[in-house]
């Protein structure tokens, strides 16, 4: 059986520059893949390409074995690929309820049902999304993705600029979305330990290629491998530094 999300020899970039090359990536339904790597490694570009918002240069993306049309965001969305972009792209002038209404589909749950997952949004229900705190905005962005009942959920830098406590709550939610809804989740994250805590598998992307791939559990206890993948040959951590 094919994986929920499959990338084969995927090459992509922005404008004239190729950002990642010949990428192979499988994510099973109900699992979370943490996509790690330093700034500029190509993580966000990869997510935009998977969501059809940027065209791939070569290779293909398949959902449950069915290939997506290249560079077609509407087709990707119909196939169940939903992106939560790093800037969230909320409709800041619309209320929380309206933001969810926009994304609602025929078989979607009612917007209010999302409050079970994100109870904090209850008291903001009729407020403009732009007036929410960073954490609440991120919850709304996740809720807006969830109401589309994604088969593949792509989450970009969820924790950016958020307080640690909020981030932990959000990560718990991600875990639930994977186990309860059976979505395959790709989580781009800078908070390495938190991401490894919630993920089943992890991949480190550096300079456009996957330099490290493994079970999240194992990598969690092997910080040096991650650090080497991140920082190249220079190790900033004092403990166990070979010199």
């Amino acid at each position: 059986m094919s994986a929920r999300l499959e990338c084969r020899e995927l090459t992509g970039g922005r404008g004239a520059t190729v950002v990642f090359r010949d990428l192979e990536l499988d994510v099973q339904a109900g699992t979370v893949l943490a996509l790690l790597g330093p700034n500029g490694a190509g993580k966000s570009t990869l997510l935009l390409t998977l969501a059809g918002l940027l065209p791939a240069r070569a290779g293909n993306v398949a959902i449950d074995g069915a290939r997506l049309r290249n560079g077609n965001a509407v087709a990707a969305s119909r196939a169940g690929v939903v992106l939560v972009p790093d800037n969230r792209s909320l409709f800041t002038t619309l209320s929380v309820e309206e933001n969810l209404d926009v994304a609602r589909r025929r078989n979607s749950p009612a917007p209010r049902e999302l409050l079970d997952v994100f109870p904090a949004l209850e008291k903001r229900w009729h407020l403009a999304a732009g007036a929410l705190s960073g954490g609440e905005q991120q919850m709304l962005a996740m809720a807006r993705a969830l109401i589309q009942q994604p088969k593949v959920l792509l989450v970009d830098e969820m924790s950016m600029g958020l307080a640690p406590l909020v981030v932990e709550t959000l990560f718990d939610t991600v875990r639930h979305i994977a186990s309860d809804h059976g979505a395959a989740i790709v989580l781009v994250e800078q908070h390495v330990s938190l991401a490894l805590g919630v993920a089943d598998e992890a991949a480190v992307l550096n300079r456009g290629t996957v330099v490290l791939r493994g079970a999240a559990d194992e990598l969690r206890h092997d910080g040096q491998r991650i650090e080497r993948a991140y920082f190249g040959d220079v190790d900033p951590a004092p403990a166990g530094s070979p010199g």
Partner: protein
Amino acid sequence: MDHVASLLLGLGNGGVFAALALALVITYRASGVVNFATGAQALYVAYTYAGLRRGELLVPIPGLPKRVDLGSELGFTLALVLSLVIAAALGALLYVLVFRPLRNAPPLAKAVASLGVLVVLQGVLAIRQGTLTVSVAAIFPTDRWELGSALVLADRFYLAVTIVGLALVLAAGFRFTRFGLVTRATAESPIGAYVSGVSPDRVALLNWMLSGVIAGLAGILIAPISPLTPVTYTLYVVPALAAAVVGRFQYLVPIVAAGIAIGMLQSEALTLAGRYDWLPQTGAFELVPLIVILVALVVVGAGMPVRGGLVRQRLGHAPRPRSLLLPTLLGAGVGLLALLATDGTWRGAVIGSFIAAVIGLSLVVVTGYAGQVSLAQLALAGTAAFTLSGLTEGWGVPFPWAPLLAALVATAIGVVVGLPALRLRGLTLGVVTLALAYAIEAAWFRNTDIVSSDGARVTPPELFGWDLGIGAGRAFPRIEFGLLCLGVLVAVAVGIAALRRSALGSAMLAVRANERSAAAVGVNVVRVKVLSFAIASFIAGLGGSLLAYRRGVVTFDSFTAIGGLALLSTAYLAGVTSVWGGINAGILASSGIVFIALDRWVDVGEWFQVISGVLLIATLIAHPEGIASGGHQIADRLARWRARRRATEPAVERPAVATATDRERPAVAAAERPVAAPAAEGPALHVDHLTVRYGGVVAVNAVSLRVEPGRIVGLIGPNGAGKTSVIDAITGFAPASGTIELAGQVIGALAPHARVRAGLGRTFQQLELYDDLSVEENVSVAAFGGRQADRRAAVARALENVGIAALGDRPAGELSQGERQLVSIARACVAEPSVLLLDEPAAGLDTQESGRLGERIRAIAASRTAVLLVDHDVALVLQVCDDVYVLDFGAVIAEGPPETIRANRAVADAYLGAMHDAEAVSA
């Protein structure tokens, strides 16, 4: 009471302006198109309605019969419904055929395409319907109400009420229906729509249909009041645009109020002009939209919202001329041959092309280089032409002085026209300049108090007894006049090419590319904008004077506002970003060679206008940046090919600083550090309690830091910690509280470019290079003051210092990420700042490149520059810095020399979360 009556009389027109403004705003919000053809759509539907009432269906397609007889006259309701269905279909057709293919094109390309649509619709109707006015039976009751002594026409009142009702229904629809919700969402964020599973294309299509219906309804309702003629209806778009600007292309109710107010004030202006002799007898009507816009700009003070998108929108590549001599000789030679080889009509066309090219070149300066959309260039040419008449006939000013003075008058007016540009950008500015052109045309060129009804005579030019005039009779057109025009064209073209290579030209492109980063390198944006309008207006004035000499008698129809729209379309299509594009515009212009050739050789007869409109649209879809863009690509490829053949050895970067191998580097760094740190005379940069708030979010919280001359201070922290906000606040790009001192001088109140001139230099995370400019030009934009030779030496030094001297001639857009980083550093250093702020200079570099970067930064600090370095590359920061501040959640969590920071748990935690807790357990 008369005033009330005349104000109420304007309700009819006002209602139509309001409705067209609604249609404009709906298409703008849904697709980012400022649709100049809205009035033409209204006209088409009005004709269809008029036909249906007579029992005929209008068929626009050539070859088919002009109309289908439906057997019997249709009643009001049926005709209305059928016409509105056709209106919706027309809207859908326009979106699918024209504007959907252009959805990622620059906004200016979309606007120009709508001008093409305008030309096509107007042309089709003129051919299929004739230009005779058509009257339509009344729709509303035509009662007359006595209101005291005032007489009110009921139909006007009903019309306005209908439109207000329509606006309320629309506002409610956008507020309460799902369609309205999705439309509002898409207008705010197309990306948000995509990730919400909504197709912005479908939303745009439906809105185009809705907009078509509203425009059509406006056309139908006004038809009984204002008889149908192609030109009036089309021009309704000017007051409608004014109303839309008042509502910032966003708020429906203010837009409708403004539309109705414009109609009423116009009516009142006519009454007042009739009553008081001292008021201008013509033009008061056309001045109203302009005044309303200007008042709104002062009160509302903002342009239209910019639609977001993934594709960065640009005006097109503006290549730097590679050499001046050869193209000048070649171009002048070809022009001379064309004059010698032709006579009669053909020579007239050649001369027409020369003159149109001069006026086209004025657009190259203001729009192509400086990025300011001006629809007033033809009107400015007109002001010079009419002034020339006064100077020569009235005061007898002799030849070379009269046209130069006239051009100076145009310059003065042009600077005034350009003033709104200080507050507006892009197409909003275009709308304002259009309203200005429309007002100048009506209040001056058509004003029979100033210009006699048979035009303003101009004395033919003569120099030292040599007749340079165009002549008359068999001698027309004389070659001497052709030579004069060619001479002016060559001078202007060479001047503009030289401008493109000058510091001012680079500054113009910098302003066009990004006003923010232009200010960050010390460019005075206001000055550059005003200068570009002044230069362009002078050139337009020269062109207008030549046109006046060519005609002998100046009349308004050479310089209409609509003509100005056509000029911009032609110039944009021909390539508004280069000198050759400006000359192309002359060749393509309606008085030029191509026009005459088509007219002579291809017998398209009355369809000429329609075909040219269709060609315009088709060409735009194929080349959204104009046809010259293809030529630029070919020229670039040729140049690269020649460069490759010339280069026998590969163009390796020559490192400016003696390089140690990568392995030795840390040791060398440690040895050097103490030498580069004498801090006797106090800090170069001292920041105290700096706080930045965005809305309710505190991005930077009471940060204090100091950087001594010759030292490198690092600022690190995870994403979103507030590092860039600190740099933005120091350089004046983010509002902040707290004190910022540069060598003891408080700079917190200065504008960004003034801070740069006081000794700050910065780079941007996104680099913000000017991709069209060469590396050398990118850097020279930032070199201010002193003589040109000094500036050139400073640029060479800056390139040498960062090790990219070999890349000087390459366009910045072609370089690798690492090379681009170095260009941005050279640009920040060229003015020899006392404090240099580097925002993520190592982003996108590999380890080796970032090692080399570290050496260069140290070399810069060695010349007593204080450096603040923000970067994610912790290794780099720890290696090169003397001191490091660590930021998290906007506050400093650690501070000290690299060794201390390296050993600090909190830093590793900030980067990797609680990663190291797990590691500590397992270790």
